[in-house]
Every structure is written in structure tokens, then in C-alpha cells.
């Protein structure tokens, strides 16, 4: 099981707590984690990645094991701490807008 933490707005939208768990088939990457997340919570489609391009939305960042991995390839393996469930894959909204 992969642990994922959501920003407050998305928790409310998905009706979850701060952290959810998802099952990922195959290699654990940003893409496979987010695919699994959207399968479990379809209302999150389009809110983290843009429709069509699947690009990360501009005001969001992804952290794995305390490291900002937002600019890494979505198909790169994530840190083993995420794969093992020791740490959560974090989706964070940028502090912007005053």
C-alpha cells in the first residue's frame, strides 16, 4: 500500500482524511501513484494533473521522503521509503495568492 497525503481542499473534495492509501500495480512512480489515486477517487481527476497533457498543475508540488520531486520524470521510480509505506507521497499546494 502506498500512502498519499492530500492538501486540505482535495481532502474535502474526496471526503477523506489527510492521508489515503492506494494500491499500485507494477513499478511505483509518480504516474502510477497518481493513476491509482484517481482510480480510487475519481473526483480528483483534473485537480492534480491537467486533463489531456497529464502535466502537474502549476501550483502543486510533489514530495517523496522529504525531497521535492516535482520536476523529476513522472516515470522515475520513487524513493524506497514511499514504496515500502514508511513515508507518504505528499501532494502540496503552493503557498501563493496572499
Amino acid at each position: 500500500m502506498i500512502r498519499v497525503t492530500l492538501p486540505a481542499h482535495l481532502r474535502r473534495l474526496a471526503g477523506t482524511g489527510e492521508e489515503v492509501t492506494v494500491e499500485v500495480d507494477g513499478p511505483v512512480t509518480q504516474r502510477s501513484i497518481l493513476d491509482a489515486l484517481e482510480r480510487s477517487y475519481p473526483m480528483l481527476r483534473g485537480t492534480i494533473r491537467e486533463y489531456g497533457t497529464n502535466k502537474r498543475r502549476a501550483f502543486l508540488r510533489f514530495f517523496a521522503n522529504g525531497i521535492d520531486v516535482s520536476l523529476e520524470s513522472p516515470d522515475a521510480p520513487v524513493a524506497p521509503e514511499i514504496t515500502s509505506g514508511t513515508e507518504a507521497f505528499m501532494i502540496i499546494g503552493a503557498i501563493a495568492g496572499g
Partner: protein
Amino acid sequence: MSGVRLLVGTRKGAFLLTSDAGRKDWGISGPHFPGWEIYHMNASPVNPDRIYASQSNAWFGQIMQRSDDGGATWSAIGNEFAYEGIPGTHQWYDGTQHPWEFKRVWHLEPSLTEVDTVYAGVEDAALFKSTDAGTTWTELSGLRLHNSGPSWQPGAGGMCLHTIILDPVNPDRIFVAISAAGAFRTDDGGKTWKPINKGLNSQYIPDPTAEVGHCVHRIAMNPTRPDVLFMQKHWDVLRSDNAGDSWVEVSGNLPTDFGFPIAVHSHEPETVYVVPIKSDAEHFPLDGKLRVYRSKTGGNEWQELAKGLPENNCYVNVLRDAMAVDTLDSCGVYFGTTGGQVYASSNGGDDWTPIVRDLPAVLSVEVQTFQ
């Protein structure tokens, strides 16, 4: 029991304001979707318990919500608005071409006859239609693909399709308005569109009488006379008596003819309401006095409505989708401000009372009437 329900969209959530026909005592529920911008909510005339809401913010994009129980509970519905084909480009602020990019839904217009059909006007300007109660959306691309499309340019608020009016007599006729392209009409259910901007004169664009390029802020219609339209343009208030084929200015004695919303009395089709705003540089009322102006002559002769409205130090704005009328015997008129007030008049504008004073900035107001 007769009464009304106001659907109020704000910068930080949605609020539902309900009253009996007296419209003196109000119940308020909300915020629904707290922290999110609610650009618009609108209910189905076929099933008044069905309400749609456009929920968005800069971080997480566009969410769509639907309630089937009058706003008590909500469910997220389809939020994919994909332009048909390769979207192409439109004119950007600096005159260069810029890719068409979906940003948000500005306006929702449920069908007058089909319970599962609803239209959405979006930024960058396009019209979408759903026939499954918002589960999926399909672009009516004939509008965006009009040969003038590459010349459309955003207004200060973005290139938004903000007005959708469904003709109650001719189901194939729809009017839309886009900032800053102008007004358009289809007579074949959305396949083809024609600009309807003849008579508009916009001194701030290179060709003041161009076929497209006008910053139309809002259009309103009384459903008993679908060929008569009233328009609040960036500057100027206009009317058309031929379904938009031509327009004449009816600003008359307005103290300023800049503004955003315009509404028509539900029983008196020549009675029109606007909220004059000082200028495009100063988006607040003249002299700090919030005023509605009413014409009972279809324009040109305007009467100041002041009773119950702020007399001084009022520097709010009233946005284009933030005014509505009910259909009770004594027509109710409502508007919301960027200062978070929602004002109501239960007698056609003679007297005004704030229903609420301290909401987040109001983006939109719609009203449902229960007879």
C-alpha cells in the same frame, strides 16, 4: 408554499438564501465548498431540486458539482472540458496569437425543457453541452471555430463566455456573449453562429464598429419577448428589438453607462435594471453611493433607486452574473456585491434591504421561484 431560493456564488464558497414570498426573513445555508471560488450556480427549470455549481481555484482547477435535492447534498460530476480537435489560437493582450486554454466555467444554463441537458460557458471562450446531467461535456465547437475566432481577445477578466440565453420559443436559438469578442447567436442548435454586434460602438478598440471585438458585459431577456434583448456593454447600455440583428444605445440619462449586470423585470418587459459603475478604471459606484437604476420605458429614461442602499463610502462592485429577478407577483430583484452584501427588493426595486452583509465577494446570484 411560495417562496424563493437564491443561489449565491462567492470567492470562498456557495451560499443558499431562502425565504417565503414575503422575502423579509431569510434562512442561509453555507458555505458549501468552503474555500473554493464558485463562479456560478444555476438550477434546472424542469427539476428545481437539481442545481449545478461551478467550483474552481487556481491550485486545483475546475470542479463541477450537482445537487439533486435542492442543495442539501452535492456530488462531483464531470469536469473535463476538452476543446474539439486542435484548439488553435486567439489574440492575446499584446496582439500576438495565444493557444486556446481551458481555465474555468463561468456560467451554467440548464435546459428549459430537458432535465439532463445543461450548457456551460467557459474561459477561454467556448460553449459546452451536457445531455447526461453533467457527467460528460461536449463542445459546440461551431462557435469557437467561427472565422472570427483567431481575432477574439480577452477582456481584463479573461476571455470568458459569460452569458447564455436559451430562447424559450425557438429551441434552436441560443444567444451567448464573450468578453471581449461580443454577442453571438445560433439558429440551428449550436452548429453555426453569427456575430450580432451591429450598432455597438466601442471607442476603445481599433475599429469601434467592428463585427467582433466588443466587450459585452451582460445580456438579458424577458422570456415573454425573446426577440427583445438588453445589453450592458463595457460602456453603453443597448437594446435590440430583432434578436440581436441590430442594437441601439439606450443609456439616456444614466449618470455613467459603465457597469456589469443588467436584468429585466419578470412581468414588465420594458422595465430594466442596471448598476452604474464609475468607470473601467474605477470599478465602484459614483460618489460612494450604491445605486440601482431602473428604466420603465425600455431604456433612455432611467430612475435612480436609492431607498435602503448605501448613501456614502460604498466602494464595492457588482459583477455581471450577480443580479437576478424572481417571478413572484411583486417582482423581486436581487444583487450581490464584491463587498459580500446581497441586497433584495421585493417590490421591483422601490425598496432595498441587505439579506446578508458579510459574505465573501459575491460572484453570482441566481434566484429560483417557488409558486
